[in-house]
């Protein structure tokens, strides 16, 4: 594309020279017309070729060499910037601030103090209750108490006691009477426990 641009410029220069030669009288009219026609044709051909290239999506040759070198520099500059950004993204991190993410922050100083106070109060209350529970159990009265509940019916036990005394009394007297009494007692027990 740079070649097309330079050839076009050459043709335009030759055309200007030709016109100068003709104006100064160095060139006959017929030769001038023929050569001018040829140069114009050449220039048109180059322009057509340039337009085709533009239509094909390639850069036209209408821009100067400086333009292309600047373009190259720009391109390089963009690539350098991209590379810089990539490196920044990779290795540099944003410093965290409290305002950015307040939910992830720890408790504030005030909350810490409240928690500490409540924990101390809780500990003291718990300890006091525990101690009071301990002292309560150690205060068991030393007075001797009496219980008289029984799983055995009162009648049954009285009968047994009476029977025993009867047996004892009789045993001092006669053996035969003992046997009879015992039989009677066991009969009584089986009917009324």
């Amino acid at each position, binding site marked *: 594309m740079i070649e097309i641009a330079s050839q076009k410029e050459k043709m335009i220069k030759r055309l200007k020279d030709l016109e100068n030669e003709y104006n100064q009288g160095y060139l006959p009219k017929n030769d001038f017309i023929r050569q001018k026609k040829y140069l114009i044709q050449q220039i048109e051909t180059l322009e057509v070729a340039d337009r085709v290239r533009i239509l094909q999506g390639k850069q036209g040759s209408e821009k100067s060499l400086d333009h292309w070198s600047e373009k190259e520099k720009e391109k390089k500059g963009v690539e350098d910037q991209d590379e810089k950004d990539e490196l920044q993204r990779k290795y540099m991190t944003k410093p965290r601030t409290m305002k950015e993410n307040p939910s992830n922050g720890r*408790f504030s100083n005030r*909350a810490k103090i*409240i*928690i500490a106070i*409540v*924990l101390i*109060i*809780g*500990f003291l*209350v*718990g*300890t006091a*209750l*525990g101690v009071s*529970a*301990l002292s*309560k*159990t150690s205060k*068991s*009265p030393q007075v*001797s*108490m*009496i*219980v*008289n*509940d*029984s*799983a*055995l*019916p009162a009648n*049954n*036990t009285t009968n*047994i006691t009476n029977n025993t005394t009867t047996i004892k009394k009789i045993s001092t007297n006669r053996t035969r009477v003992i046997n009879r009494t015992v039989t009677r007692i*066991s009969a009584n*027990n089986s009917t*009324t*426990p």
Partner: protein
Amino acid sequence: MNKIIFPLILTIMLVITVSGCVTQKNNQTNKYSQNGVSFDYPQNWTVVNVTSPYAVAAVADPTTVQNDRPTTAVIIQKPPLKTGADLKLAYDTNYANFFNKTGYQRVSEANITSNNTKIFENIYTINTAGLEKEYQVVWLSKNRKIYVILCSALKEDFDREKPNFNLVINSFQAQ
């Protein structure tokens, strides 16, 4: 933030308070070993005198005294076993007319076998002079001797005292 802190604080306080109160109650026990029987009982209970027939031991909670008598107590009785009779016969004979009395009411009856030992359990209530007590009676036989463990408490206290009664029953040994 307050929504999280206050429930958290309350929970911590509750845990600390409850742990301070509960630990002592559950773990410490005393051991009774006299008159041929031994068993564990709660540390805050005490050994008491007993006038019940055939009683060999009694322990009670001294904080439950009403009319100079503890309402929560465990009494061990050792009634004589008649010749030819066994535990079941003695148990059946004992309760044949037991509940005919006014104010006596049967709650439940159970027949348990534990470690090849037969145990009879009878739970009933007695209401006398406006005082209603609940009784758990366990009958068991060891070495051809009958032992009766009588656990009693006011009806409203009975369920709360059950762990203490079970402590005595489960640790009972006849020597």
